[in-house]
């Protein structure tokens, strides 16, 4: 089989000869193995394979995208696509595709992940570790992924990429309402810390025992990287220029303005080793490290070529996929690997420095009343630990953080020096590298 980038280049060539002006072809071949476990045993194993080409063509300003999945019939599908594009309505906001003489970093996937035969040993390790810490019910998932892509475009893109990932998520219970969650996400199998993730989830589940009804009011909250991963999920989307453009972002008209405390620097960096490291965006532009928030000041939105043109700036090489994925809008510029730069606190120091607060392991279901102002709430899950005078004194349950996202970021006053790569389900997503934060005086509510 030809290299994927050669397949992509061949299709770009055909589309060009058929009359397309701009063409992008991104060919993907992926294999995923999933082990799901619950009640401390493996309950299902899934595997799936996908081969497809995402194709974008423009005839003048008439654009059309398609997901070509009949790999034995690509040439004729591309000819039909260009023909249909010629009859498509004009996309007046179309700003072209990335073009230039691109250079790409070589990417290699860890062969140990690619060649793994039976990953269930890691699942059993994590279950045993959680149980040895005192958990009595453990569940989670282990993903083994191997993805190869090749891209070509009339803008000069021609590249291959390959990635492999092992992603373990463990949730442990010591009582029906006492749980802890931890992850180990890595692009190198030798770094997969299944036992450590299981032990951490188990340890947190024990600390979360006998939770009392949480109180309402203002509390300092200390959030673990997993919790922060969910916050990043919504923060990054609101920094996407597309959401700013349609009024669904609290970051509109905030470039150059303070959107977080001076402790906060946020970058998107798909160039560092991670499970979401990638060589190019979906227009074939080489990815790069983008500083989004520097010392609390918003520096840029996430852009592809069309949004950059609309905002009179340059693409940040964050062009999103032309075929929308779950709960996304087509072409929405997207963060690939957000990073909150570490600070200089030890996590223990943050706890001991907190007079009255809550230590929060994880959260989910972050929803907004109004994206343009940032009013939101999110529901902490897993260990919710009460802090009094610098000590953890017990666990709580049934609370909600109901506040404003801009206020949350502006209230960060401590950032840990240690960071962790996290990725979990559709919550702590995309994969990100994050520290622990303390956020002052967040509004905590609960059911009446």
């Amino acid at each position, binding site marked *: 089989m030809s290299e994927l980038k050669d397949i992509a280049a061949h299709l770009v060539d055909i589309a060009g000869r058929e009359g397309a002006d701009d063409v992008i072809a991104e060919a993907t071949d992926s294999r995923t193995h999933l082990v799901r476990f*619950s009640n401390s045993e493996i*309950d299902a194993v899934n595997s799936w394979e*996908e081969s497809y080409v995402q194709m974008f063509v423009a005839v003048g300003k008439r654009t059309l995208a398609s997901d070509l999945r*009949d790999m034995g019939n690509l040439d004729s599908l591309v000819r039909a696509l260009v023909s249909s594009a010629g009859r*498509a309505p004009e*996309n007046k906001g179309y700003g072209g595709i990335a073009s230039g003489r691109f250079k790409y970093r070589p990417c290699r996937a860890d062969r140990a992940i690619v060649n793994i035969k039976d990953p269930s040993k890691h699942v059993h390790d994590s279950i045993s570790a959680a149980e040895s810490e005192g958990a009595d019910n453990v569940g989670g*998932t282990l993903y083994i992924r191997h993805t190869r892509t090749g891209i070509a475009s009339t803008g000069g893109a021609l590249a291959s990429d390959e990635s492999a990932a092992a992603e373990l998520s463990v949730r442990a219970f010591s009582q029906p309402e006492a749980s802890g969650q931890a992850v180990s996400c890595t692009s190198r199998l030798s770094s997969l810390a299944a036992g450590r993730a299981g032990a951490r989830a188990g340890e947190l589940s024990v600390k979360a025992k006998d939770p009392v009804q949480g109180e309402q009011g203002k509390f300092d909250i200390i959030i673990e990287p997993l919790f922060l991963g969910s916050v990043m999920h919504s923060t990054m989307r609101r920094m996407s220029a597309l959401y700013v453009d349609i009024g669904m972002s609290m970051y509109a008209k905030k470039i150059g303005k303070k959107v977080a405390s001076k402790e906060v620097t946020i970058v998107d960096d798909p160039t560092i080793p991670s499970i979401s490291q990638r060589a190019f965006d979906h227009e074939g532009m080489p990815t790069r490290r983008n500083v989004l928030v520097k010392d609390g000041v918003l520096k840029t939105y996430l852009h592809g070529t069309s949004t950059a043109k609309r905002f009179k700036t340059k693409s940040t090489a964050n062009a999103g996929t032309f075929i929308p994925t779950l709960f996304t809008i087509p072409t929405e510029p997207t963060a690939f690997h957000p990073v909150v730069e570490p600070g200089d606190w030890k996590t223990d120091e943050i706890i001991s420095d907190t007079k009255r607060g809550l230590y929060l392991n994880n959260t989910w*279901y972050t929803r907004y009343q109004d994206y*343009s102002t940032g009013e939101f709430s999110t529901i902490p899950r897993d260990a919710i630990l009460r802090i009094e005078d610098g000590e953890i004194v017990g666990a709580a349950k*049934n609370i909600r953080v109901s506040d404003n996202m801009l206020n949350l970021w502006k209230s960060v006053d401590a950032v840990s020096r240690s960071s962790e790569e996290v990725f979990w389900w559709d919550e702590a997503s995309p994969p990100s590298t994050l520290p622990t934060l303390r956020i002052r005086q967040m509004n905590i509510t609960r059911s009446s």
Partner: protein
Amino acid sequence: MSGGRLLEEMMMRPPVTCMIDEDIALRTLGEAESKESLILAEVRLEERDMRHITVKEGQVSSVITSKDMGMNVRIALPTGIGFASANRISKLEGSKLVQAALRQAKGGKRRTPVALAPEPAVKTSWEVYQKHKTADMSTDDRLSYLRELDKAVTKTGVKVQGRLFELRDYEIGSYFANSEGSRIRSFLPRITLESSNMVISGGETAQSIRQWGSSGGWERTHEWALHEVLPQELKMLKRQIEKGKGVKPGQYDLVCGPEVAGIAAHESCGHPMEADRILGREMSQAGRSFISPDMQGKRIGSEYATVIDDPTVPGSYGYYAYDHEGVKARPRYLYKSGIINEFFHNRETASRFGVQSNGSSRAEFYLREPIVRMGNTFVAPGDFEDDEIFGDVKEGVLMHSFTEWNIDDKRYNQKYVSREAYFIKEGEIAGPAKKCVLEITTPGFWGAIDAVSKKLEFSAAECGKGDPIQAMAVNTGGPMVRLRKVVLK
């Protein structure tokens, strides 16, 4: 419900005509059947054509077409369940998938051997009728529909940012065969529209993020009546900004509109009643449930709290006639007169509970394993007229629709913030109430209901569950429900 009768009418239509090659499915199944200690083997072949157009501020911003096909094999052995899938259909692929699924099932090492509730073999075909086939509509037809919608919005004079409309329609053709003799061919077309609008007035904003969806053809878009509904919604939001007053925190009688009743039915009845959650299968993702197996038959709400899930509602977004294990769909009475009545089951959970599956096994598409899912979940209608329901409310609030919402993973603590709300004084609507907040427990919500109106309305949604997360087309719905003495913030 009349859904059952109409379903039979639909099923009497001529057999489905998708291009799937049954022979590949049967040969693949034959290979799986030859294995020892097999409890069940299933093979599904699927093809899907999709069209998607996005219009922003009256201009096209994206046009997508997609043609997809693939197959999966699911094998249950006493040691475990394996599921393998690929976006290719061939005998060779089928053979590879059998080997993979078998390997996975063997490697499961379950302490409790896998068991499935028995089901009769079914040989049938079903389809949802399209009066106007969406596949026959041109891109220009779709574009003019969306441009007219945008024009209707701009004509209101309301300042709106966004005006983003996404119209998506697709047809799923499928052939299912299992080792017990079931053979089911189906054709399911769906159409859905999502809109994002931010209303601005006097420096204040109010967001409207909505979805409409149906199974069927282009004719469904006429039933949505969006050229009237959406302008009304935006004018309403402008009034909410300009005339709305905050609700003084305290105890009120609350009337929930159909949209709010529907989301509560979905989140705090539907989800906690999924048997896979109750058994812990979703423990590390979508979560567990506050409901335990021994709570069946216990009271959760007032006698007026009845919640039904019925996948057979004709034209509904969550419609299906047979689930992905070949079990015939039927209405499920989840909470019945306030009593925890019936959980959602697939064949595996049903076996654990010693009951029959009630046809709740669904997968988003062929690459994903079927899991326990809802269809169309709604509060059962009562006998009050809409205006009667306000009748003896001295001081209260009508929360007609919601914006922010969430619920904890055990499905016990939920929050709804109003998008459209009004004060009720002495039984009459008395002006807009701005962003009132209901933060309440599940028994608190269902236990406070003392009246339910007659008129049932549905909303479409994509429900997320599973790992990898699967978006499932569902309806939520209800009539108006009245809750006595609940705290609003």
